[in-house]
């Protein structure tokens, strides 16, 4: 069952990637190819797009064939691998939540500014990674912010974004 799931996951991923390749190829068609003696900006993207789509199609074919063969093997009395959840399944939701928090961070940084938003990000990341209590994550956030201020604003003179509200 686990192998079946993995292969189906592989087929889905390859299909998505094939679609990305097709979309790229379709967009690349907007750029002129011109002639080989005077190649246009569309030539290289066309070659790359064809390569990517061909490879994605090959991936889909391979995974589909592997799934078919595996099912034949199981139906023929072969031992089906035992079902089991990955050992880290309990934490699988965390990366998606972190990405969502980072999207909110990037939208909100214009209003909240770098220091307030980034302090919140350090806290959120630390807690999602399982940091116990609040004292250490808060201290870590303050330390990281101080380090960023000294390194980037004072030494490198990079103006970090200031918020319109804070």
């Amino acid at each position, binding site marked *: 069952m686990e192998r079946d799931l993995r292969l189906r996951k*592989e087929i889905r*991923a390859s299909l998505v*990637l094939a679609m*990305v390749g097709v979309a*790229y190829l379709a*967009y*690349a068609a907007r*750029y002129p190819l011109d*002639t*080989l*003696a*005077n*190649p*246009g*900006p569309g*030539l*290289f*993207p066309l070659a*790359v*797009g064809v*390569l*990517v789509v061909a*490879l*994605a199609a*090959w*991936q889909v074919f*391979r995974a589909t064939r592997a799934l078919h063969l595996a099912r034949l093997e199981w139906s023929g009395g072969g031992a089906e691998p035992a079902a089991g959840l990955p*050992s*880290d399944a*309990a*934490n699988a939701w*965390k*990366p998606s939540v*972190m*990405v969502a928090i*980072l*999207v909110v961070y*990037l939208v909100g*940084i*214009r209003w909240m500014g770098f220091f307030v938003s*980034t302090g919140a*990000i*350090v*806290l959120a*990341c*630390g807690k*999602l*990674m*399982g*940091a116990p209590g609040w004292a*250490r*994550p808060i201290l*870590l956030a303050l330390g*990281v912010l101080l*380090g*960023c201020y000294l390194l*980037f604003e004072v030494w*490198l003179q*990079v103006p*970090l974004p200031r918020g319109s509200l804070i």
Partner: protein
Amino acid sequence: MADTSILSALSISLQPANLLACFLGVVLGTLVGVLPGLGPAAAMVLVLPLTIRLGPTAGLIMLAGIYYGSMYGGSTTSILVNVPGEPASVVTAIDGYRMARRGRAGAALAVAAIGSFVAGTCGVIGLQLFAPLLAKAALAFGPAEYFALTLLGVILLSHLSGASRSKSLFTVGIGLMLSTVGMDSLGGVTRFTFGVPSAQAGLSFIAIAAGLFGVAEVLSLMARRERPAEALPVRFRELYPSREELKRSWPPILRGSVLGFLVGLVPGPVATIASFVSYGLERRISRHREEFGEGAIEGVAGPEAANNAACAGGMVPLLSLGLAFTPATAVLLSGMLLLGVTPGPFLLRNNPDVFWGVIGSLYLGNAMLLVLNLPLVGIFARVARIRSQYLMPAVLVLCIVGAYAENNNLFDVWVMLGAGAVGYGMRQYDYHPAPLVLGLVLGPIMERSLLQALIISQGDIRGLWESPISTGLLLAALLAAMAPLLHALYARGRFPLPKLALGPQPRNPGGGGAGG
């Protein structure tokens, strides 16, 4: 001439600012090597904004220091904690940790450090000799030759990147796709920008690399259950290998140095491959074959020497041809361009101070690492125990600020976030991000040389393989592309070739797969 070059190299790298940059680089590199997860490429990306302030020579010295410092650090945790800080130190853990369990941790660490120093120094000598020669030969390279070389590199990468070949090649393709975003290299036409003005200059390499290596690593660790590492104790007075151990270590160190340097010249994760190949070689020819997997000193000495020599070998195509075939050298290439230095055949003529400064710093850095690593080994082992819940938030912020600081533009941080999410997804589906980064770096060179070659030959496609160099390179690329098919045909017995007589296989379950 060579003496003058060494003196000139050392005089540049002994300038206080360069010396400090070298010291900071090797310390940072050692820490990165010690900490599992964060690799040298990610660490180099994170410090790229800092190097702008340091200037080209000191900046590149610092980046190079991180690169080879990480190879030293990786062995410490492999031996003491059985957790390789770097993929290149995975094989060191097999025998190094067994030695540590037997109370020979000090000897293993000392041999690893001495081997790394000797191999690193041999590698730099090789780099110093080969890079100018290759640079001179590269003057005969025109666009067709560069196109053939990058094509060969891309195909070889697909063989050497660990995951399936089609997946690696596909990932290189995605990198090439991303490299076409922005202004076209010859005509100045903007492509794939979707009306975003910030994308006209192309997607930031720092943002993509920080996302793929840094943010994706943070997300991956978040999804994993962390097990705190327990380090075996080691005392300074124990850092003396016995006479027997030293005697057994020298030949593997010397073999690893030569092997590592040669492996370093080909595209791919050279340090990892070199260490695995060296382990396989030592296991095959050793008189103490039965000790492999149980704590053979040769299993530490050879791979540690090989991975350091491979780092120097990997810098030969970068400095002489301006081509990067490993993620870390891709960051170095990007750093050079960011600092206004163009690597390639003209580097030695146009920026001799940078070239010799980097070479000199490699000599000095190796010596610094030997002096630093032995006495401070206990501290570095304790660093490995820092929990990721305190380390990774800081890495995430460094990724964000690093991506932002290049152009003071939040668009790059969005790109970094996208690359991070994609990189995390790629890891879930067994796609390695390294070929993508290399595709991104090689893409513009490949496109420019292809188009220029076609213009020069007035559209005659035969111009791509007219010269003997490009013919040779394209034939090699064709052979590399066909290799899996030929192998499959041989395996099916369609071509009944006489089988090679192989010696008896060593019985050693501990070293499975080390033969590379």
